[in-house]
């Protein structure tokens, strides 16, 4: 029996070193159309579970804010759960929860996204509430005052009360200096405190319009009924002018070189953060950068882990991540030195690894492994109505091609070793980057 067991493992080895994966991914079926008022609708019917997810994606994020009014988009996300002409305060939550559903939302630099996940019997309710708050929201003092307090506590919870809590905002501010990507969605409490109700209403009227929204319905529903419902609820809203937006399509590629030591009273250990300006989400090189990231940092057989953590034992943890935005991106590396090693030593080891990939590229086996991991993740991420809805809306918004949900994997599979080396140079050859040394401080 042991021989049979080992024979199986020999087969495994052969597969991983020679053969590329070729998963048979079932296409995800969807329909999409534009309404006369400009709202884009995507429908994905799937009867595998008695659940429907609705996602309304508004093309407004923190990058659309006035620099003197940062945090508006995120604050507005909170206000959208308050009241409408036909829904009293707290009743939005009540209607969805008491129907067995769940509701939430998030705000990023580029988007504000609202979602409901409801039993399939309640899809009309979910659509009705979304239609209500799209154009019938009541922005009043009680809602604004309450949410001011809530958002301040959110900020403390996520940033101010945790070790290294400020690094991300600080990194963003340097990498995207002089652009609306320079601040994070949580924004400034002072800006929110000093804003008037009138300003919030203006923000709502500017961005919360059907022509600035994408609606996705995913799950166990009847297409004809849902189409009629959408038409009845959202159809009467007129088309609005295109919102004002800051010029972002020319976010500068150059950044100032920054090296800063931060004494963090909440930190117990030193930690290194390195940031690079990266590319936009729709840049053709984004696939190669994703694969490069996987090769460098995903799993314990990745380059950074194998070299710096396992072999040299200079760090106990090193990770490299990418965040793409509509018009730019950031790549960052985080390292924690092992006992007796310094942040300098970790930085030098990371730099040596970056140089190695720029000069020597990657092997066929490394690239194939990264493609296999990507393929498994691609398939694995398409589970659940909500996840599928989010992916559909992102493909439409950022690539103008919803069908990529079925074909994007091919773009990863076409990436070559030369592409990986080229994008490594494109990312890391820049002289200017942002480096933070966070050090524990006694206060």
């Amino acid at each position, binding site marked *: 029996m042991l021989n049979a067991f080992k024979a199986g493992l020999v087969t495994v080895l052969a597969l991983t070193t020679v053969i590329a994966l070729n998963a048979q991914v079932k296409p995800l079926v969807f329909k999409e159309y534009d309404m006369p008022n400009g709202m884009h609708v995507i429908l994905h019917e799937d009867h595998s579970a008695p659940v429907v997810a609705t996602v309304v994606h508004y093309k407004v994020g923190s990058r659309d804010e006035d620099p003197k009014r940062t945090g508006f988009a995120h604050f507005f996300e909170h206000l959208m759960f308050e009241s409408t002409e036909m829904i009293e305060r707290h009743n939005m939550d009540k209607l969805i929860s008491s129907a067995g559903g769940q509701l939430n939302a998030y705000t990023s630099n580029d988007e504000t996204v609202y979602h409901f996940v409801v039993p399939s019997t309640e899809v009309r309710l979910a659509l009705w509430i979304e239609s209500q708050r799209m154009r019938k929201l009541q922005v009043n003092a009680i809602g604004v005052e*309450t949410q001011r307090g809530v958002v301040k506590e959110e900020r403390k919870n996520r940033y101010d009360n945790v070790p290294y809590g400020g690094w991300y905002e600080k990194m963003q501010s340097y990498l995207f200096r002089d652009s609306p990507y320079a601040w994070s969605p949580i924004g400034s409490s002072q800006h929110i405190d000093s804003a008037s109700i009138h300003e919030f209403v203006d923000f709502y009227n500017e961005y919360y319009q059907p022509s600035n929204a994408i609606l996705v319905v995913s799950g166990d529903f009847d297409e004809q009924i849902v189409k009629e419902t959408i038409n009845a609820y959202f159809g009467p809203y007129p088309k609005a002018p295109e919102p004002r937006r800051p010029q972002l399509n020319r976010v500068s590629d150059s950044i100032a070189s920054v090296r800063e030591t931060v004494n963090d009273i909440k930190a117990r250990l030193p930690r290194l953060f390195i940031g690079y300006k990266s590319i936009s989400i729709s840049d053709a090189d984004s696939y190669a950068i994703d694969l490069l990231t996987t090769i460098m940092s995903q799993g314990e057989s990745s380059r950074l882990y194998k070299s710096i953590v396992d072999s040299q034992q200079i760090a106990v943890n090193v990770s490299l991540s990418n965040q793409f935005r509509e018009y730019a991106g950031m790549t960052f590396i985080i390292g924690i030195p092992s006992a007796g090693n310094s942040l300098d030593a970790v930085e030098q080891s990371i730099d040596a690894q970056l140089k190695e990939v720029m000069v020597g590229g990657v092997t066929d086996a490394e690239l194939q492994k990264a493609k296999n991991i990507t393929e*498994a993740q691609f398939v694995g991420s398409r589970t659940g109505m909500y996840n599928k809805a989010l992916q559909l809306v992102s493909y439409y918004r950022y690539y103008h091609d919803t069908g990529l949900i079925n074909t994007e994997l091919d773009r990863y599979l076409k990436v070559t070793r030369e592409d990986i080396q080229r994008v490594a140079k494109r990312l890391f050859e820049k002289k200017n980057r942002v480096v933070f040394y966070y050090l524990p401080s006694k206060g």
Partner: protein
Amino acid sequence: MTASPPLSKESLKFRFPDVAETVLDDGTPLYVIEKAGEDVATFGIYLRAGSAHDVRAGATAFAAEMLTRGTVDRAAEEFDEIVEGLGSSIRSTCDRDTSSVYGVSLNEHFEETTRLAAECLLRPAFGDREMNTMRQQFITEAQIDEKDPEWLATQASNRVCYRGHPYERRRRGTIADMSSMMQADLITAHQRFLSAPRCIIVAGSVNTNEMRAMFNELLEGMPPVKFNPALSRAQLSENSGCLAVNAEAVQTAFRISMPGVELDNADYPALQLITGTLGGYTLARLFSVLREQKGYTYGAYAMSSVRPWAQTIDIVTSVGNEFTADTLQTIADEVSRIASERIRIEELENTRQYILGTFARTNETPQQTAGLLWTTLLHGLPRDFFQEHIVRIQRLTPDDLLPVQMRYFDKSRWAIGASGIEDVVLPALKMHVHEVETMHI
């Protein structure tokens, strides 16, 4: 445009998915959630010995997490290369009660992935070099945890909820435990969890008979079950509090507990509805008062925590320092209210529908179903437990709930764990509990 909410009159359509059940030749139960058409398959091998069963504190966690760090047959690097080369994932871990190995892969690599998981479960190397790497990682993570306000509050809560019980210990032990861990400790812990009662759950586009044949082959050589995972019951220290001091905190984190019940207790369905009404979701009382009325917090929740040897009702929130005292008083008022007032039918219906909807929303995939199935197995419940639980939830009335409210929601039985600034939190704690201690981690 409809002027009122278009609420459905249809009842919720939910049925717990079918689970095929069989037994391997050595008696290990195998549960298979077959769902044709899934591109990804998962498995979990669960062993009923966790960190609470440690003889040497932290050894089970160390041994469980070391399983994927090299085997007798191959070094860690080679193991990682193979698993990641397949695009698969194998994770090994333990919680207080269970050690486990999980895997996920594309269908075409499921067999290879499970073979590798079996290899690491049965034949781990526990090599010195890998142990030292993991030791450093554990110590680093522990040092980071020790500055985390939520983690600190949980340690304080563990003190007052599980004083002297194995549940009080940290899962991975202290930094001193990690520093002195030897290979022999891991081998002992490994032998213990290998001989613990076990089961396997597989979910995806798989066939039960094929899975049975495969696991019979892969797990041949597993020692017979001889470990008894029974522990004494943990006793909550009523009317007491513990503060983990966090001198730089800008928020106070609270974990307030009261004695709860096991899942098969006749009061549990009612307790789930009551706890849900108090703080189970964003419409519930605590969230409404502390966040939506007072703006003190980003979130405030109540939930039942059910472990095999301890059950509590927990209230959890983090609030700005300046709101610490009023938050505790507000929670006390809400607990007193729920202990004494009949819940209005409308409020009960809201909670009931939310809970029932949760079953539908959290059973979209076979992997989610596997999670619920494991809950029934861990607690020795009948396979139809959740289906019956739903029926019981649907039947309960406000009059049924009131005696349960009075029985369990008693402020004088509070055990409060908190983290924050001493001068801010201690006076507030002393207003509500008799005994208060501080922890300096």
